[in-house]
Structures are given as structure tokens and as C-alpha cells.
């Protein structure tokens, strides 16, 4: 099912497909017409995606079929070995952690995991972590420091879960502790916003030496819907709120909140995930390589300065 603004693209694609079928049946050469249509399609795609409104970007960032943390961990990385549990409260399926290799380099990985279908979305709590998820992340930070392994965090959450148990178990406390613990990492850390960067629940694993974001991902202090509900007293005004919050990759790069934007294939990561993941891998490799040389002191100071300023 396409996003609203993808409808024209889908229609044109259907027409091209139809014409191919027709040409094949009739055994006539329509390659020229098809080529023309194809180039029109490309223009339409680029026009559409280069001029997406902020609210449309939000929809792309949340699009079904967009690669999730596990898609990256099992495709861009090798030997992914998941480690479960926070040793205190439980094992949070919305926060996936473990060991993996990127292009031969051993790293500790932490990813916020949304479902790839409704069933998984429910079991993953739509990517909204409980305190046990952040405790598990902190366990991984300890492991990374002890064994001197770089840390890669994949951010993709609407936010930390606002529920009874989550509050009882100190959601605010673990987010603060996670921010603090990550800022103390003695190893290189790279965070990548791959979809939704939802408020403190996202920042908790975003205190890295380098913070990257995918072209169509978003990172915001509050969801457009909640912002609209509070400031416009009408969650229907989410589109206005999205514009006001300036939460797109381009905005955040200008604000200095992120350091680099990872380009997505034309049509968005959800339309060509293999290509999106390949680009992600290439960029992440560069970023990890760039941090490799740095001393513990340099890493700590760079992270301190990056978030202090």
C-alpha cells in the first residue's frame, strides 16, 4: 500500500508495466515509448521525493516496509549474535542488542526494533522500550568498554513507552542513566537514526561521537501529533506541527543536531531496501574507520564537546 503522495508514481509504474505486457503480446517494439515513460517516471519520483513536505517525510520515516534495525543487523553486518536481557527486569524485544562484525570489524550493536508486520509490531511494542531495554543497552556499553569494542546504535522509536510498568520501573531514571553511561563510553560510538528518532527514548542511545541520520528519517523532541495536541489543542494539526518542529534530516543537519545525512535511494529506503542498506554499510564503515585511531581521552572529550556545546 503506497503512501498518499506515492499514488501518481504507482499509477505511472502500472502503466509502464501494462505497456510492456502489451508490447510483448503484440510483439511490437515500443521501447521508445517505454523509455520516455521511464524517464518521466524518474523525473516524477525525484520531483516528488526532493520536494516532500516535512509531514510527508514523517510518513516515509514510518513507512511500512522501511528497513528495521534487524534488517540492517542481519544484512549489513556479519555474525550477528544477539545477547538478551538486562539482568534485572527482563528482556525488551523493542531493544535488540548483541555482537556483530561490520566488514571484519567487531562491534557491539544496539538497535531499536519496530515490527515488520502487525504481529511483530505488537510483540516489539511498536519499537517503544521499557526500562529493561535501556538497562540492556547499558549492559552492552559495559561490555563494549571492557572488551574495547566500538558501539553502533540504530535509532528507530516513536519514543520510550509511556505505561504503568514503565513509569513504576523508572523510565525517566534509566533514560538519564543511559545518556550518562553512553557519554562515558571509552570506545568509539556511532548512532544512526534509521527511521523515527522519538524524543528522550531515542537520545538515550544517541550520545555518540558521530550522529548520522538517513535522508528520510526524522528526529524530534516530540511527535507532530502530540505537539499539535498540546499547542494547537488538535492532533489533526500534526502537519502544521511537523513543519514547525523542523525535524527532517536536512533541518537537523542545519541545526547541528546530526553530523551527516545518509542518502536513500530514489523513492525512499522502503522502495529499495537492499540499496539503502548497502549505502548505510558503506557510510558506517567510513565513520568507524575515522574514529578508530582516537585515544580514550580524545573520544571522551570529543563526545563531551559535541553535546556540551
Amino acid at each position: 500500500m503506497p503512501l498518499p503522495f506515492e499514488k501518481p508514481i504507482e499509477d505511472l509504474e502500472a502503466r509502464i508495466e501494462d505497456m510492456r505486457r502489451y508490447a510483448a503480446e503484440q510483439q511490437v517494439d515500443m521501447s521508445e515509448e517505454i523509455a520516455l515513460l521511464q524517464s518521466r517516471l524518474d523525473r516524477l519520483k525525484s520531483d516528488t521525493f526532493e520536494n516532500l513536505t516535512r509531514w510527508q517525510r514523517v510518513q516515509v520515516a514510518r513507512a511500512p516496509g522501511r528497513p528495521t534495525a534487524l534488517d540492517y543487523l542481519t544484512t549489513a553486518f556479519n555474525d550477528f549474535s544477539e545477547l538478551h536481557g538486562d539482568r534485572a527486569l527482563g528482556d525488551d524485544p523493542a531493544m535488540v542488542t548483541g555482537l556483530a562484525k561490520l566488514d571484519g570489524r567487531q562491534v557491539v550493536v544496539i538497535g531499536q526494533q519496530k515490527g515488520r508486520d502487525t504481529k511483530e509490531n505488537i510483540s516489539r511494542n511498536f519499537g517503544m522500550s521499557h526500562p529493561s531495554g535501556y538497562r540492556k543497552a547499558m549492559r552492552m556499553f559495559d561490555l563494549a568498554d571492557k572488551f574495547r569494542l566500538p558501539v553502533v546504535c540504530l535509532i528507530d522509536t516513536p519514543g520510550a513507552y509511556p505505561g504503568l510498568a514503565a513509569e513504576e520501573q523508572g523510565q525517566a531514571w534509566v533514560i538519564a542513566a543511559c545518556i550518562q553511561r553512553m557519554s562515558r563510553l571509552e570506545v568509539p560510538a556511532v548512532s544512526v537514526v534509521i527511521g523515527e528518532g522519538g524524543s528522550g527514548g531515542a537520545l538515550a542511545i544517541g550520545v555518540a561521537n558521530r550522529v548520522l541520520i538517513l535522508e528520510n528519517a526524522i528526529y524530534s523532541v516530540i511527535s507532530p501529533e502530540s505537539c499539535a495536541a498540546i499547542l494547537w489543542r488538535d492532533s489533526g494539526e500534526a502537519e502544521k506541527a511537523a513543519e514547525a518542529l523542523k525535524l527532517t534530516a536536512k533541518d537537523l543537519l542545519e541545526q547541528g543536531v546530526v553530523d551527516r545525512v545518509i542518502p536513500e535511494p530514489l523513492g525512499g529506503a522502503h522502495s529499495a531496501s537492499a540499496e539503502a542498506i548497502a549505502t548505510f554499510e558503506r557510510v558506517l564503515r567510513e565513520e568507524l574507520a575515522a574514529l578508530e585511531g582516537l585515544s580514550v581521552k580524545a573520544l571522551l572529550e570529543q563526545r563531551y564537546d559535541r553535546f556540551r556545546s
Partner: protein
Amino acid sequence: MALERLFRRNRPTRKEDDNSPAGLWLKCDACNAQIYRKDLIANLHVCPECGHHYSMPVDARLDMLADVGTFERWSGSIRPVDPLEFEDTQPYTERIEKAEQRQGRPDAIVTGACEVGGLEVGIIVMDFFFLGGSMGSVVGEEIARAAERSADEGRSFVAITASGGARMQEGALSLMQMAKTTVALERLARARLPYVSVLSHPTTGGVTASFATLGDVILAEPGALISFAGPRVIQQTIKQDLPEGFQRAEFLLHKGMVDDVVQRKDLKARLVTVLSALSGAGARAPKEKVSAAAV
């Protein structure tokens, strides 16, 4: 019904915030007693009848905690800007102006140096009446500067929090204040200087999820609402009523999240006990690195 009470409670005692026209008398939200405003203020904004703790204005808080004549203000030199040119039902710039006129300060915080029971302290007090005590770039910067300056001057650090959370009109930049304030506390930790946070009503969202809950010792005021997500949000999420006392200071004490719930009248004495107990090492070894486990 529970939730409404929960929000009617702990309202401030400033004229424009209560329902008594003349403002000489007011009806206690908790016990309905008629209270003479002067008595309430003389009683540290705690109901003389039922002990209900009302929000406390910044100046009254400083008068209550700082030894007489010792407070020296640090904050006030920086003013909020409008990086996103944010406008909802009214422009962010207008909201700030109004708040500044009403509260007489550029943003929702006052920081400074003072003595508390003779102990040299750096202190920050949040102003809930300034845009709900929301944390934007200025609030975050003032807190960070105060923490770093306290560390440089070998002072213990005290935070009195009251906030609705991050200031969304500054977008992701306000979110980043959570990280900024957190890393700034590192200076105090490395100097082995104690940091005590006092959570007053209400402390929620991005403030609770950053510096407010990172105190070496965390104290809370009776009845204070302390949360990450607000009760309304949670109720909309789980579609059921919240248990009585949920997210209140006493509830969180039971859940192991705060070290103690302290009556306002006892707060200064408790701060002195705790700070003096923990301030030996800082004096001895201000510059030494502390292992993460111990921090």
C-alpha cells in the same frame, strides 16, 4: 475524579494562579480550608491545615535554603532566541516576552552561589511559572554553566527542579539539553563533589529524564508529581484510570526511585546533613578522576 484532582492540586499561590479574586484568602485545594494567604506564605507555601505542599516561587525557595545574605546570582546573562522561528497559536518570541515580563527573568531558571548551613554550594532553581519551567537552550546552558562553575570552585551542587519537560518550541535543540546538562554534571563527579537534586511539583519529561534524576542523592517534596510521561498521556495510552498516588513522590519512594520524601520545613536541615556527609572527598581530591562505577 482522580485525574482532575491530581491536576487541581499543588497549584501555585501567585495571585493570577488561584481562584480567590481578592487573593487575600484562598481555599486549600487539598483540604478545602480557608487559608489566609499571608499564613500560607509564612508557612513556606505549605497549607497550615493539612500540610499540602504548593509550588514555591523561586525567590521564596532561595530565601528558605540560602543562609541569609549569601546568595549571589550567576544566571541571567543569556536570553532565549527563536532558532526555529516557531509559531503555533502565537509566536514563540511573544510567549517568551510575556513570560519574561511576568516573571522578571529571561528564562525559566535562576542559578547562583550561596552558603547552606555554612557549606559552599552552587544551586539552580527552576521557575515553573515561566512557560511551565520547560527546558530550552538557555535553561540547559545555565544549568551546564552552573554545574561546571561549581566544579571549578569546589562547590557542592543542588538542583531544585520543577518543569513540564523539554521546550518543544525549540525542537530537537531542546532535546539536546538533556545530553548537555548530563555531560556537564560529569565535571562535578570527577571532582568528587556531591550533587543533590530536589524534585518539587511537578518534575516531568526531559528534565526528569536527564539531570534531575542523576543526583547522588535524590530528595522529593511530599505529593510532588514526578514522571517521564504525564498522567494524561499514559491514560490515553493504556485506556484505564491510574492508581491513586501514581507517580507521586511517596509512590516513587516505595518504588525505590528517590532516597527520601522530605517536608519542606525539614529540607534545609536534610540538605546540610547529606551535603556535609558527602563533601569530604571533593575537598581532599578535587581534580582526581573517578572510575565510572563509583560515579
